[in-house]
């Protein structure tokens, strides 16, 4: 497994259905563990990716016959994951940090993604679809 990889891309196109989120977690677990991420990092990546996929499925406004795309870019020292839907998009400016003390049930997803991943970028806009890109760096061995 330890040959030199410069850059590899794996892409998954999946229907907008909640049933597939667990399958996507299986896929990313396989990728991340073969890259050498530890258990804690793998859990972080699984949660962040699931949040992004849940958003595409719940908020994208696409029908179950349409697909969204998860792209994994595997480099020597980092994993970059993008989740792109072709749905209705939204305005990132209106996003607020969650106010848990008010017991709001929503608004945790993107906050969690930003907390767990090293770098997060969102490209979205009204009827442009949404693409969220998140990076996890491999930690240096101690």
């Amino acid at each position, binding site marked *: 497994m330890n040959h030199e990889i410069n850059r590899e891309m794996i892409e998954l196109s999946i229907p907008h259905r*909640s049933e597939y*989120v*667990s399958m996507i977690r299986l896929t990313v677990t396989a990728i991340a563990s073969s890259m050498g991420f530890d258990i804690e990092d793998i859990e972080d990546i*699984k949660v962040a990716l*699931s949040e992004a996929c*849940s958003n595409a499925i719940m908020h994208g406004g696409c029908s179950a016959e349409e697909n969204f795309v998860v792209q994994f870019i595997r480099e020597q020292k980092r994993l970059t994951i993008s989740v792109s839907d072709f749905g209705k998009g939204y305005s990132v400016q209106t996003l607020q940090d969650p106010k848990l*003390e008010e*017991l709001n*049930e929503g608004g945790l997803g993107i*906050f969690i993604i930003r907390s767990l991943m090293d770098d997060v970028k969102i490209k979205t806009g009204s009827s442009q679809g949404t693409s969220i890109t998140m990076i996890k760096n491999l930690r240096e061995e101690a």
Partner: protein
Amino acid sequence: MALKIQKSFNEEEQLWVLVLEGEVDLHTAGILKKAVNEMLEEKKGSIRIMGDQLEYIDSTGLSVFIGTLKQLQKENLNILVRNLKPSIKKLLNITGLDKILVVEN
């Protein structure tokens, strides 16, 4: 992996014990919500969640907890969680949920 739920009322401590086994995500959160609602309709009480076999949860599951807390707090009841995996504790910590429900260990 799906989600299995076992619920029972502990008469001694007067609370619901909810054993979650598997994964709570967008696909299974609805089952959890339904189970909790049925419990609380049958009998109001605090809920202890046993996390020994809870492999995964994300915001779709945490939202169920938050919605339930909203109901329970009105009656001075609470959610207690026990034996959660480190990754799940981390998630409660990040979101601040560990300050609202009771982490028993």
